[in-house]
């Protein structure tokens, strides 16, 4: 993927995090609004699945950007990118499992 596409997705996920993260915060910290949000657990699970995906992409890409800036070398850049991608996918798989258990889908 081109670096410009990666960074464009970085900004898209930033906006997604702001929206889904706000829903996550309200659900857990505001007694009134939280009850309304958690009333439909399937929708809230969808929100958390999107939140987790966007957050992991944004966080791991942020770490990747800092790392490849610290080690400006073509070969290292390639390996860092692959390592971050694999760790990110594995974390998403585990995180989705945890979410399903926590929200009563498994």
């Amino acid at each position: 993927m081109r670096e410009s596409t990666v960074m464009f997705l970085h900004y898209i996920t930033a906006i997604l995090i702001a929206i889904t993260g706000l829903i996550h915060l309200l659900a857990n910290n505001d007694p009134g609004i939280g009850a309304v949000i958690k009333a439909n657990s399937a929708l809230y699970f969808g929100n958390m699945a999107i939140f987790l995906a966007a957050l992991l992409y944004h966080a791991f890409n942020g770490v990747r950007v800092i790392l490849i800036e610290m080690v400006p070398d073509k070969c290292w850049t390639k390996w860092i990118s692959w390592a971050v991608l694999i760790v990110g996918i594995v974390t998403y798989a585990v995180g989705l499992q945890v979410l399903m258990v926590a929200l009563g889908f498994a």
Partner: protein
Amino acid sequence: MEAESEFKEYYAKNMRGISGWFKARAYTIERWLYAAHRITGILIVLFVLAHFYSTGWHPGLWWDALLGIIVTFHTANGIRLILAELGFAVGKPLLVKKPSQRPVSIEGVQRYLVVFALVLFFVLAAIWAYYALVVQPMMG
């Protein structure tokens, strides 16, 4: 031309490393915001890893308020960065008349973008602190 390529080669090596983030003297306030954005980003990643590892972990009360400052700064400054990326409130490039003229972000419309981001940061941080220090203890 020769000097320019040497310049580029030097910067491509990134000799300063992390200390380069804090080389903010003689730059604009955006340079400080950039350094703070990186620091808060790394801190948020550390919190998120702990939050995942021990599901739903939180530092608690005053530390939660501090977490709010970190997260809301990253959010507010991130909104500023996205607006600038999309070309909002960037302003026209200024004609540099003399060597002492200051960069566009000091004299141009971009100044308002920084003010907007900082005001948004204070408002969001205050709301977060209210929830962390008042609402959460009541919820138990």
